[in-house]
C-alpha cells in the first residue's frame, strides 16, 4: 500500500494504523497542520492538557495501565522543552511512548527562529531514540519505526520531530506492514543452557528469593501469571521494587512486600540473607541495594533482563539471562516441570520460619490516633473502601508515595502508576487522567501530597473538560514531607523551605476548577468522606489533613546495608545510624 497524502495526514494515518485511540497534546504554531488533520477525522480522540509535561505523564499513565503505547503531540520550542521532564521520566521507568514534536520549517532550522529549539539535541539523552524528519517521504517509515522502537526491547520514549513544511508537503505513505527495522532487534529468548542453569541454581538453594521489578509489568500480564506460577511451583518468597508492585499478588503468603529504602523489614532482611537471588526485570537501583559492598553478601545472583546494559551495571551477577520476562519465565516453568525439580524442603521451611520471624516484627506498625489522621491510616482506609472495585492508583512523589506503596495492596499488574526512577513530583494527576481515559469506568485515584499536587494542579481543568472523574487524594501534612523527614534525620531539624506556606484552600480550588472538593480532618469522619469521594462521578480533590510529624519507616539510611534498616519505634537512634558518607548520598 502506498498512497499520496500530506505529512500531517500521515501522522493521523500512522496513528490509526498503529491502533492509537487516544492521545494527549497541546497545539501551537508548528503543529497546526497536524491539528488540522486531526480536526478532519473522528476515529482518534485528542485530550487537550494544560501543560505539555502533563501530556507526557498522562500518556505514561495511559500506557502503564493499558499496556499500549502512549502518544503525545506538542509544538516546537517550549512545547518540546516542557515535555522533557515527562520524556526523562518515561525513559527512567521504561514506559513506551511516541511523542510528536512540531519543528520550525526546515529552511529556518538553526536560525533561532520563533519557538525554535534543538529538539533532537535536547531530547537525545532523555529518549530511547529520536528522529528529525526532513523529507516527507521518510515520515511514514519513521513514524512506524518509532512505534516499533518504543515498545520492543526495553520500552521507552521516542521523539519524532517534524518541521512544519514537512507537515504541509505531500509524499508517499507506506503502511506499518512494510517496515522492518534494520538494526534494532532485541533478543527475546534466552539460551536453553542458561534456563537450565537457572532452574538448577534455584533448586539447589536453601534461602532463595525472587526480586522482581517493572520489567515483569512491561512484559505484559502473561509475565505476571508466569511469575505466580513459578513462585507456586518453587515455594520461593517474592519481593518487588516500587515499579513492580502488582506483578505478584499482595494477598499471597509468599509476598514479602516491597523491598528497598522504604521496603519491609522481612523483604530487606531476606534479600540480605538469601543464598540465591533471582532478579526478574529489575535493575539493582541504589534505592534497592543500599550499600553495594554489603548487598546480599552471601548470595549467587541470577539476573533476567531484556536490556544487556542492565546486567553487571551496579552489581556483578553470576548468571545473566538476556531475554523477555514472559519468554524466560515460561521456559523456566517448563524446565522446572520437565525435570520435576524441588527445593530441599527442610531448608526451605527453615528459611520461611526465619522470614516469619522477621515478618512478626510488624515493621509497618504505626502509632494510631483518634485525634488526628495518621497518613498510613488514611491509605489503609482508602484501600479498604476501594479494594473490591476496579481501581487504578497513581501517586506523586514523596512520603505519600511510599505509604501508598506500603499500605495499598495490589493484586494485579498495571494497577499502579508511579514515578520511580526520576521521582517526578506532579506525575500523579496527569497519570491518573491517562489511566482514566484508558479505563473510563474504573476508579482512578491519585494519592498525592499537598506539595506535589501543586506542580500539575492545572490538569484538574483537563479532567473536568473531558469528564474524567479522577480522584485526587491529598495526604496534606503541610510539609514537603520527605524533604522534612530528611532534614529531621540528616540536617539537624533545620526545616529549610520544606514548609508548605500559603497553601490554597483545596476545597475551594476544586470548586473553582468545576470539580468537587472534600475535606477531612478527623479519623472518625474518614470512611464516610472516602465513600462520598467514590460516589461522586466527577473529578474530586480530597483534602485529607494528616499528622504533620509522621515519618516514613522502615527506612534504610543512605549508605547503609539492608540489615541496618531503621524501624519506626527505633527512630530515636537515627543520628547514629547515618554516617557522614551517607549524608552525601541523596
Amino acid at each position, binding site marked *: 500500500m502506498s498512497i499520496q497524502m500530506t505529512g500531517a495526514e500521515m501522522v493521523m494515518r500512522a496513528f490509526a494504523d498503529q491502533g492509537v485511540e487516544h492521545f494527549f497534546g497541546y497545539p501551537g504554531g508548528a503543529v497546526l497542520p497536524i491539528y488540522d488533520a486531526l480536526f478532519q477525522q473522528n476515529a482518534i480522540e485528542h485530550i487537550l492538557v494544560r501543560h505539555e509535561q502533563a501530556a507526557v505523564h498522562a500518556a505514561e499513565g495511559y500506557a502503564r495501565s493499558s499496556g499500549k503505547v502512549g502518544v503525545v503531540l506538542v509544538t516546537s520550542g517550549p512545547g518540546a522543552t516542557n515535555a522533557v521532564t515527562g520524556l526523562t521520566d518515561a525513559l527512567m521507568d521504561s514506559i513506551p511512548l511516541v511523542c510528536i514534536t512540531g519543528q520550525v520549517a526546515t529552511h529556518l532550522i538553526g536560525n533561532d527562529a520563533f519557538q525554535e529549539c534543538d529538539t533532537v*539535541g535536547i531530547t*537525545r539523552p532523555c529518549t*530511547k*531514540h529520536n528522529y*528529525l524528519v526532513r523529507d516527507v517521504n521518510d515520515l511514514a517509515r519513521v513514524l512506524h519505526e518509532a512505534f516499533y522502537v518504543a515498545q520492543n526491547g526495553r520500552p521507552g520514549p521516542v521523539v519524532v520531530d517534524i518541521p512544519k513544511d514537512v507537515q504541509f508537503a505531500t509524499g508517499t505513505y507506506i503502511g506499518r506492514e512494510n517496515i522492518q527495522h534494520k*538494526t534494532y532487534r532485541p533478543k527475546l529468548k534466552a539460551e536453553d543452557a542458561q534456563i537450565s542453569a537457572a532452574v538448577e541454581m534455584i533448586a539447589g538453594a536453601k534461602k532463595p528469593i525472587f526480586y522482581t521489578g517493572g520489567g515483569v509489568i512491561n512484559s505484559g500480564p502473561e509475565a505476571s501469571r508466569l511469575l505466580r506460577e513459578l513462585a507456586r511451583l518453587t515455594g520461593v518468597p517474592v519481593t518487588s521494587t516500587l515499579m513492580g508492585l502488582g506483578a505478584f499478588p499482595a494477598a499471597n503468603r509468599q509476598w514479602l512486600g516491597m523491598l528497598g529504602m522504604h521496603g519491609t523489614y522481612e523483604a530487606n532482611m531476606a534479600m540480605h540473607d538469601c543464598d540465591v537471588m533471582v532478579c526478574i526485570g529489575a535493575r539493582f537501583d541504589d534505592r534497592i541495594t543500599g550499600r*553495594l559492598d554489603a548487598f546480599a553478601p552471601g548470595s549467587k545472583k541470577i539476573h533476567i533482563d531484556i536490556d544487556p546494559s542492565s546486567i553487571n551495571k551496579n552489581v556483578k551477577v553470576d548468571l545473566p539471562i538476556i531475554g523477555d520476562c514472559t519468554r524466560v519465565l515460561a521456559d523456566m516453568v517448563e524446565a522446572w516441570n520437565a525435570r520435576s525439580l524441588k527445593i530441599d524442603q527442610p531448608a526451605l521451611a527453615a528459611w520461611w520460619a526465619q522470614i516469619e520471624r522477621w515478618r512478626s516484627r510488624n515493621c509497618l506498625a504505626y502509632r494510631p490516633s483518634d485525634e488526628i489522621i495518621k497518613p498510613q491510616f488514611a491509605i489503609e482506609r482508602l484501600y479498604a473502601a476501594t479494594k473490591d472495585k476496579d481501581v487504578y492508583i497513581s501517586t506523586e512523589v514523596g512520603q505519600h508515595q511510599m505509604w501508598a506503596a506500603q499500605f495499598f495492596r495490589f493484586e494485579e499488574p498495571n494497577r499502579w502508576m508511579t514515578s520511580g526512577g526520576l521521582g517526578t513530583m506532579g506525575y500523579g494527576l496527569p497519570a491518573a487522567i491517562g489511566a482514566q481515559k484508558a479505563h473510563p469506568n474504573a476508579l482512578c485515584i491519585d494519592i498525592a501530597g499537598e506539595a506535589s499536587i501543586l506542580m500539575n494542579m492545572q490538569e484538574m481543568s483537563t479532567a473536568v473538560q473531558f469528564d474524567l472523574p479522577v480522584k485526587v487524594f491529598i495526604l496534606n501534612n503541610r510539609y514537603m514531607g520527605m524533604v522534612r523527614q530528611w532534614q529531621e534525620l540528616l540536617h539537624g531539624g533545620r526545616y529549610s523551605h520544606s514548609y508548605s506556606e500559603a497553601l490554597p484552600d483545596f476545597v475551594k480550588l476544586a470548586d473553582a476548577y468545576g470539580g468537587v472538593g472534600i475535606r477531612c480532618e478527623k479519623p472518625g469522619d474518614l470512611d464516610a468522606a472516602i465513600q462520598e469521594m467514590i460516589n461522586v462521578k466527577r473529578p474530586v480533590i480530597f483534602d485529607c489533613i494528616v499528622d504533620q510529624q509522621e515519618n516514613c519507616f522502615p527506612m534504610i539510611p543512605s549508605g547503609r546495608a539492608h540489615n541496618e534498616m531503621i524501624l519506626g519505634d527505633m527512630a530515636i537512634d537515627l543520628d547514629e545510624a547515618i554516617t557522614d558518607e551517607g549524608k552525601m548520598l541523596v
Partner: protein
Amino acid sequence: MSQSPEPIERHTLSVLVDNEPGVLARVIGLFSGRGYNIDSLTVSEVSHEGRLSRITIVTTGTPMVIEQIKNQLDRLVPVHKVRDLTVEGTALERELAMVKVRGLGEARGEALRLAEAFRARVIDATRESFVFEITGKSDKIDQFAWLMEPLGLVEVARTGVVAISRGPEAM
C-alpha cells in the same frame, strides 16, 4: 560502587553505525553523560551504498565499565555492531599524524634524518620548515613528536586510532 581496586584497562572498540545525522552525537553523548573516558575517537563512512560508518573508540576503564560501555553502545538504535578488538586478539592499530617542524641548519638536517628512520614522508617543505606525514601505532607517533621537540616542533595534527582485526573475518 565497592572500593575493590579493579585494574584500569585500555580497550579499542569498533562500532558499525548507520551513517545518519546525530549518530556521532549519540555516541559522544553516551560517553559524556555516563562519565566514560574517550582516549581517541575516529569516524568515517565505510560503505556508501550501505550508508554505514565505522567508529573506532579507544577507552579506558575497569572491566565492569568496559562491559557497560559495550552494552550501552550496542543498545543505541542506529548501532549495528560493537566489537571489542582488544578482547578478540591483537588487533591492528594505526594512526596518522602530520608534524610541522621549523628550523635551519643542523636541526633541519637532523629532523630529516629522523623522519627517514621513522619512515615519515615530507609532504610540505619551505626553506625553514617541513611537514612530515607519519603513520604507525600511537606510541611511535608520540616518540616521533617527542624527538622533534628540540628540533623545532611547531604543531601536530593526529587522526586518532583506526583499528581492524587480523585474519580473514569481518567484524
